[in-house]
């Protein structure tokens, strides 16, 4: 409570100072009043005082905005670091469950794909892409930047993402190196996914039963998912739903103007 009062007082003062300086720099009424009451003498340079007030108002507004912006950016950066740290811990724990399900220690990457929604859809076509959202805590960022897969039209679907979207269920491939050619991938997509041995794609729905995001769990180690399918899919489902409920901001669609 004491802190809240302090914050309110600081905000009031920092907001009022430039406003007072602007008022003094533009109005004659207060200066005239002080002159009438003989608080200031005739030697007082009114024009210089007003110019100084206007200058002070500009400097104060600039400095206060700058400090506030820097402070909020630093706080945001710190919060993002904390969130990424927690996501990394969550991933490590999920990796533990996954390793336990397949009876071997395994390293995984968790990636989120969200739809690219056009604000203005001039062509009125039904092409839909899902693009990657890189989270530092969940996967190695940078390598897959800009990766996207076509999910509509259905016969042009690409990758596990396209199949997951159109089959409306969890899909997996534990033989990716061999099957990669069958997914209608471009050379760019192939170059980004070449090292993967397995991938599991799980759809996430909204209340209207639309797929709003797809989570993929992939790795570069060879494992037989079909042998442990039930346990693995249980883990993936539980993890994905929990992440979706806990950090909904990660699953927001990407907006494009055209």
């Amino acid at each position, binding site marked *: 409570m004491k802190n809240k009062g302090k914050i309110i007082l600081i905000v009031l003062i920092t907001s009022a100072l430039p406003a007072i300086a602007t008022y003094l720099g533009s109005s004659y009424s207060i200066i005239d009043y002080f002159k009438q009451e003989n608080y200031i003498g005739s030697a007082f340079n009114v024009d210089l005082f007003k110019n100084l007030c206007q200058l002070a108002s500009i400097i104060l507004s600039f400095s206060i905005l700058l400090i506030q912006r820097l402070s909020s950016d630093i706080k945001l950066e710190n919060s993002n670091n904390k969130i990424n740290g927690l996501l990394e811990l969550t991933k490590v*724990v999920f990796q533990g*469950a996954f390793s336990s399900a397949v009876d071997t220690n395994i390293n995984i990457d968790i990636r989120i794909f969200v739809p690219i929604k056009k604000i203005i859809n001039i062509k009125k076509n039904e092409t839909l892409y899902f693009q990657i959202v890189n989270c530092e805590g969940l996967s190695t960022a940078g390598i897959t930047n800009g990766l996207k897969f076509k999910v509509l039209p259905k016969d042009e679907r690409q990758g596990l993402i396209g*199949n997951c979207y159109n089959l409306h269920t969890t899909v997996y*491939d534990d033989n990716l190196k061999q099957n990669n050619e069958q997914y209608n991938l471009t050379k760019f997509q192939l170059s980004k996914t070449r090292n993967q041995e397995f991938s599991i794609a799980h759809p996430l729905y909204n209340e209207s039963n639309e797929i709003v995001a797809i989570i993929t769990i992939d790795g570069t180690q060879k494992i037989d998912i079909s042998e442990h399918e039930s346990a693995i899919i249980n883990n993936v*489902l*539980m993890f994905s739903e*929990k992440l979706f409920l806990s950090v909904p901001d990660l699953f927001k669609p990407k907006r494009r103007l055209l």
Partner: protein
Amino acid sequence: MKTFSQKEFQQIDEAKLQKYFKEWGVIAYGNSNKLSTKNNVAINMNDIFKGGAPRRP
């Protein structure tokens, strides 16, 4: 309650840590029935590429 000092924390055995993570993971994500009423159906893409119908459900 036992708390770890910085030095003690650094001495935690990596293998033990992995074991704990596995245990936490199984507790946290081992059972999906609490969140979803749907059957956990997954399609193995190998089945589709072989030309046959998916094995499940």
